[in-house]
């Protein structure tokens, strides 16, 4: 694959997706140019809009990174949303119930660790079901999404609900458990620096380590990998646990850095968007950075599009789906079967 094609294909996919979306907008009687203009200005128009887009980029980046890694190993992990919710739930439980009245300076790192651990555990269930019981991870990760979302709903109506019991949400996090906003900025928090560094770490893992080689070998051909004494089962478990930890960390960053508390619909749809991110990035960890920015811009501009151009914000999901459609076949490891 030459360098030019590596860039041309994702751009082409995104452009075709936007063009078809424009036709669909025309079909429902909306003005596509006005809609896209509203979307662009809502996502990038001024400093605060840009900051909102960057804040949205954080979870998409981390979950998309995990999806890219999983797909590289031939594991269809569609469970980013559930893993994110598991991470947010664990971080919240630790901060609002586990640390007692006087949380110390360790509360923030502990919360992030709890999030990553819970995400890893949640994805670990899918790994266990796949390796021990032969359950397809496509089904198990999707089912685990529904369960995690309901678990968060239950928690904020029950054991983790705020002390005043006014709303279905957790208590606000104390300052010590919150990620501070970067100096000179209004919304971009310190956790996003960590998120932005991780694609490089995952790239090193995937392309510059023997662990990454084993993982890619399983993605290219599980049978050939087995002959080379690489256990597809072990790699499956490993990759799902790493992807789950990344998504769980994303959940912890959301509650510690953005919302400051847990509530329902914290990040609905992020699991699917992350699949689009990973595919647009052609499963390259570094490509996840621009791809996550693209989808974060779509998401953060969709509100403005709805207000200004009267196009429902869910139209963004149509663009997402089209990007996935037009990215397939270009970026995926060839299955040994075909």
């Amino acid at each position, binding site marked *: 694959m030459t360098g030019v094609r590596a860039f041309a294909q994702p751009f082409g996919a995104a452009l075709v997706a936007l063009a078809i979306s424009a036709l669909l907008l025309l079909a429902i009687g909306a003005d596509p140019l006005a809609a896209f203009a509203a979307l662009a200005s809502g996502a990038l128009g001024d400093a605060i809009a840009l900051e909102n887009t960057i804040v949205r980029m954080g979870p998409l980046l981390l979950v998309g990174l995990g999806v890219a890694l999983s797909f590289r190993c031939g594991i269809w992990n569609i469970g980013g949303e559930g893993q994110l919710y598991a991470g947010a739930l664990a971080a919240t439980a630790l901060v609002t119930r586990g640390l007692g009245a006087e949380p110390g300076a360790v509360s923030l790192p502990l919360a992030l660790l709890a999030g990553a651990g819970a995400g890893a555990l949640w994805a670990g269930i899918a790994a266990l079901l796949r390796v021990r019981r032969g359950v397809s991870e496509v089904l198990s990760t999707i*089912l685990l999404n529904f369960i995690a979302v309901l678990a968060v709903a239950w928690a904020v109506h029950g054991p983790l609900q705020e002390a005043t019991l006014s709303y279905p949400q957790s208590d606000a996090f104390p300052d010590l458990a919150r990620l501070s906003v970067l100096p000179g900025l209004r919304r971009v928090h310190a956790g996003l620096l960590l998120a932005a560094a991780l694609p490089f770490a995952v790239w090193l893992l995937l392309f510059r380590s023997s662990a990454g080689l084993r993982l890619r070998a399983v993605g290219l051909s599980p049978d050939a990998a087995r002959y080379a004494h690489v256990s597809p089962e072990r790699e499956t478990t490993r990759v799902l646990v790493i992807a789950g930890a990344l998504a769980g960390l994303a959940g912890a960053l959301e509650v510690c850095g953005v919302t400051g508390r847990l509530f329902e619909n914290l990040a609905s749809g992020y699991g*699917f968007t992350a699949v689009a991110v990973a595919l647009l990035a052609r499963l390259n960890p570094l490509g996840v950075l621009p791809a996550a920015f693209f989808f974060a811009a779509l998401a953060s501009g969709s509100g403005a599009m709805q207000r200004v151009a009267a196009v429902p914000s869910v139209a963004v999901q149509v663009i997402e789906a089209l990007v996935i459609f037009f990215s397939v076949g270009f970026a995926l490891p060839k299955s040994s079967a075909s």
Partner: protein
Amino acid sequence: MIDATTLLLLASTVRLATPLALAAMGELVAERAGVLNVGIEGMMLTGALAAFVTAAATGSLALGCAAGVAAGVAMAALFGVFALRRAADPIVSGTALNVLALGLTGVVFRAATPPGSALERAPQMGELLPGVNLYVLVTLALVAGVALFLDRTRSGLALRAVGERAEAAHVQGVAVLRVRWVAVLFGGACAGLAGSSLVLWISDTFVEAMTSGRGFIALSLVLFGGYRPLRIVLGALLFGAASALQFRLQAAGSAIPYNLLLMTPYLLTLVVLAVFAGRVRAPADLARPFSPRR
């Protein structure tokens, strides 16, 4: 003698099982032809919206059902363009289809029902007996038809051959891609019909993302039933019963929080998959794209 509570529970079991059985029959035929269709959730959702908008606008149940089926077939055709024609990965194509359905139905539903619009309720299909109506009869006929077709007809044999050994079927002169296309479109029709039952029978309005995983449960039922039509129906009834019981507990003001009750079908599916998935032998060429020029 059956008391009134039990009767209600049974009726509700059949109601909740029917869309699952319908969608699972379509998935069964697609999978026996070697196509793993992860997009039935999206096909159901699109079918539900098309049925709702059409029936609410025209007042006709028949047109509503037809629109649901047509929408399911249209989405299946889109899936086929990527998964069959371009031999793209079926799991990614199916996932894209599900996301597309979420977005598309959201946009169309909001465009079709501005605040104060007349399109609020769809007409409802009546029941002959509690829990039994035309949907149930059609489902039963479909189950019998699919069972006979797969086991007793030459075309059924050809379809199974395509799912087991596409290459061998191709050499024998079976038009592999054509068989898979028909199977995928049939699956879309069943999913669309199942979606229509959600708005014309089980509830009278459309809600965004209202299929809430039924497509994935139907996918799991195909495995649970070991690719056998009758066992799949039994599985659907088991899930119907679990859901009915869960709703019953909610209505009775159970001490169990309703969010935990709502988890039941998903947890049950996971448990069922954990127990049965490893024992089932899937069609050998399932989810392997086929292109004749190799």
